[in-house]
């Protein structure tokens, strides 16, 4: 998953908009943005935050600067531990060609001491958008950890995994019927990159995505759902 290969695979998959959302980290987003110059693919910097409730939240921003400000807040609320590479893997930071720049030593794999509602408010105040990640997953998800989508959560959409089948999913979680759902690859490997969600937007901006998720001002989200087997 180095920047040039991510972009090559994204292009193969016909994508024009991707986001880099590492676990509690945005260290590598800028490298992918730099690598994307001239590729026709727009890259949003972001993060997959693991909240206090151990719920994963996608946080998307327009600029690296906003994302870095968010990173600072998250680092303040992560456990003050060093990474144990044998157990959690090596946390590489690379440049736009994929060359090693440094290894992040701070432990990033855990949960930040930020509740989900607080995280949404903080990301919004920095100009970003939050989408709860893979809500249908049996771990680290809003529905598994908190049982239901709380009214107190001010988000416009929920992400489901590529395996989500609406008819089956709605039977299990009737609450999801009323939500705007999107599908992302949550790709940890190149072959997991998906092209399932189309944003009908005027520009690849967080504000436009926000409008599309709410179906406002002619902006729309169109998801390709799997055939029922």
């Amino acid at each position, binding site marked *: 998953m180095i920047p040039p290969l991510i972009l090559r695979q994204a292009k193969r998959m016909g994508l024009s908009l991707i986001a880099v959302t590492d676990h509690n980290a945005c260290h590598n987003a800028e490298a992918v943005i730099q690598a994307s110059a001239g590729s026709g693919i727009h890259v949003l910097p972001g993060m997959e935050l693991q909240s206090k*409730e*151990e719920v994963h939240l996608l946080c998307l921003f327009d600029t690296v600067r906003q994302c870095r400000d968010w990173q600072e807040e998250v680092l303040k609320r992560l456990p003050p531990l060093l990474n144990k590479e044998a157990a959690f893997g090596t946390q590489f930071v690379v440049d736009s060609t994929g060359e090693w720049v440094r290894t992040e030593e701070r432990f990033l794999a855990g949960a930040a001491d930020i*509740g989900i509602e607080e995280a949404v408010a903080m990301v919004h105040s920095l100009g970003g958008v939050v989408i709860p990640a893979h809500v249908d997953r049996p771990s680290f998800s809003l*529905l*598994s*950890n*908190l*049982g*239901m989508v*709380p009214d107190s959560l001010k988000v416009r959409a929920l992400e489901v995994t590529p395996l989500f089948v609406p008819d089956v999913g709605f039977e299990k979680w009737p609450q999801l019927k009323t939500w705007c759902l999107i599908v992302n690859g949550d790709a940890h490997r190149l072959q997991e990159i998906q092209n399932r969600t189309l944003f009908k937007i005027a520009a690849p901006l967080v504000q436009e995505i926000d409008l599309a998720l709410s179906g406002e001002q002619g902006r729309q989200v169109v998801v390709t759902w799997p055939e029922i087997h």
Partner: protein
Amino acid sequence: MTSLKEIIDTLSLETVVSVSAEGRSVMGGYASDLLSCAMKGAKKDYVWVTLQSHLNVVAVASLLNLVGVIITEGNRPDPETVARAEKEGVLLMITPKTTFTVVGELTSLGVRAETQDPGRW
């Protein structure tokens, strides 16, 4: 059957809502931090032990008519959660102890759970 009052006193739990524990009996216990599991495994008049302090804890406890929730490891529900618990009549109790310790103490007091596996959904 153990009285909720006895549990609060013996485990030195702090109650964070004004819901009365008087005359209430605990029919069993359940422990998990995944609310989706608690929705399956906890039963009416059970006490639920968790370190989660999110608002949805109150929703689940109310839905299942639990006798109360013990929130462990010093996690403290925010004012909004406490207000909802007051409104729903859900008794929230907090303790600096771990879930492991609390469950051990509850077992010593005779609180039991259904031996049946709650199964998967």
